[in-house]
């Protein structure tokens, strides 16, 4: 046979896998099992997120399927004005009164009032603080500042609520001349304590991601350090700072204990910050303990949970898109 024939014969014959000893084969199998197990574990995070929305939504579903619940808490009763009796306010949240009133509008207004106050305080503090840490602070001070902020972030929210209730309430009431010690302003200030660390940390990360060459170019052109920080570094990091604010906003909407303890929890609709406010999250916390499982009121509280989940989910998606954008921009599309 000539060589050509031998080679052709060799090609047509089935390829033989290298012979492995039984021990080696066992080892390969074990590696596969371990890798499979680890991959399975990684599924937990996804599973948790899916299970959360499924099981919170499942308990809320009765609002749309059961006739009793549909009558007591229809969507129009939740979101549109109701004239119960002349002279009575059209939007009320009183799900356990004789004629249940289930308007979500007071809860939206209460949530909005407290979160807006907290953002008005926390955004300037957080962003300016981050600007200071990233641009102006001496290295020593910066290394002190970051752990301090982490400690502030580590304070349990129930302690912040306690602090707002026991200490800040009298100060705020006296200083601003409010009638009530517990009001939307106080809850907003308490919330600000909780979200300042979030805004600071994410902003600081965005600012430090700006390449040093940007700063050097600006300084070399004769700009002062402030002009460099304000007109070069800050705009470059803008999407990251917006993401920080959105994240803080999401945290403020979902934060429960502070608002529950400091806002007074009355279902009034007013734009005055001296009035009490009832937020979505605090409503769940305050009422779930006494509710009958399976009642319309119970489903309503889960429905509020679904809304909170959706709000924060959307805000998180926005924030992560913007964070990725700032990274891509500053690394020139490399990642």
């Amino acid at each position, binding site marked *: 046979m000539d060589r050509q024939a031998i080679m052709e014969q060799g090609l047509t014959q089935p390829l033989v896998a290298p012979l492995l000893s039984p021990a080696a084969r066992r080892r390969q199998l074990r590696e596969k099992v371990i890798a499979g197990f680890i991959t399975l574990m990684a599924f937990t995070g996804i599973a948790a997120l899916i299970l959360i929305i499924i099981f919170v939504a499942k308990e809320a579903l009765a609002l749309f399927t059961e006739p009793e619940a549909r009558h007591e808490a229809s969507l129009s009763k939740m979101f549109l004005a109701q004239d119960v009796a002349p002279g009575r306010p059209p939007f009320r949240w009183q799900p356990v009164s004789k004629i249940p009133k289930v308007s979500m509008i007071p809860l939206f207004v209460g949530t909005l009032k407290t979160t807006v106050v907290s953002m008005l305080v926390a955004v300037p503090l957080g962003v300016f603080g981050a600007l200071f840490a990233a641009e102006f602070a001496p290295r020593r001070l910066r290394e002190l500042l970051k752990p301090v902020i982490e400690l502030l972030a580590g304070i349990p929210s129930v302690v912040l609520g306690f602090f707002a209730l026991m200490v800040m309430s009298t100060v705020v009431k006296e200083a601003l001349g409010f009638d009530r010690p517990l009001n939307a302003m106080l809850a907003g200030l308490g919330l600000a304590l909780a979200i300042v660390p979030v805004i600071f940390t994410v902003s600081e990360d965005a600012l430090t991601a700006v390449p040093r060459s940007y700063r050097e170019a600006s300084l070399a052109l004769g700009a002062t350090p402030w002009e460099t920080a304000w007109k070069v570094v800050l705009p470059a990091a803008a999407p990251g700072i917006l993401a920080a604010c959105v994240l803080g906003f999401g945290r403020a909407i979902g*934060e429960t204990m502070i608002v529950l303890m400091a806002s007074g929890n009355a279902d009034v609709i007013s734009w005055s910050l001296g009035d009490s406010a009832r937020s979505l999250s605090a409503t769940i916390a305050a009422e779930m303990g006494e509710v009958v499982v399976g009642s319309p009121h119970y489903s309503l509280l889960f429905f509020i949970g679904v809304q909170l989940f959706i709000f924060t989910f959307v805000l998180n998606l926005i924030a992560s898109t913007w964070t990725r954008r700032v990274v891509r921009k500053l690394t020139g599309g490399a990642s």
Partner: protein
Amino acid sequence: MTPNTRRAVGLALTSLTGLAAFIIIAMLAIILFNVAEHGAGGVTWTFLSKPPEDGMMGGGIFPAIFGTAALTLLMTVAVMPVGVLTAVYLHEYAPPNSLFARFVRVAVVNLAGVPSIVFGLFGLGFFILFVGQGMDRALGHEEMYWAQPGILWAALTLAVLTLPVVIVSTEEALRAVPMDHRTASLALGATQSQTLGRVVLPGALPGILTGAVLAISRGAGEVAPILFTGAAYFLPDLPTHLNSQFMHLGYHTYVMATQSPDVEATRPLLYSTVLVLLLLTFALNLVAVIIRTRTRRKAAGAH
């Protein structure tokens, strides 16, 4: 503008940013000082070792300390294996550009943003009503045994809540282990799992511990998720079973601050409870910060 006014304006605005940073630090200092000032006197051995008495107007907080410790211990046992292995998958096992890995990352980021009260609803709807009732039916319990609020369900709810914390810190720790260590181990004939168990995980241990400590500190302070999954208003007995209800420092703080019949009388007890809770979370956080700064410095030196 002349250069001098430009400098002056810049300096003024720069000091404004410094003021913002100062205010943040001052807020922390005021809170700490206030709690320490009013609470330190009440933290005695009797306070730490006795149950509450006289309708919460006297006695101590031992059941709450014990409940918090037991709760976070159970939570840690549940969250650490899952969190660490998820991070191992993301950093060591996932193929590059894996779609699944990207989904896991998105899920983890979003999980971190879910409000804590929604975790409470989830714990009630999933663990207690779905899993608990299912277990009661399967195990043939006549009356509710698992389908009621208890320490196991509260701990598992907190485990889901703290999962992102563990995953993020573990991944950071894995990133700090030099690639050379892995390639050297593989070149010597070790399999991937042997490399993981004997080289990568030991190298990443400080960072993994940081994650555990941060998760514990977060879990110990969260109140909203345990409101309806197991925390009890007042319970002189310690939790003995996995389905027992328990007292909790944070929940105790909330109850004493908002539902006390006589605020002035409970105030000293309340302050001391808050001080204990703060000391606990701060000690944990401090440990985490120290370990992390050390590993970061080491990682920076290794490259």
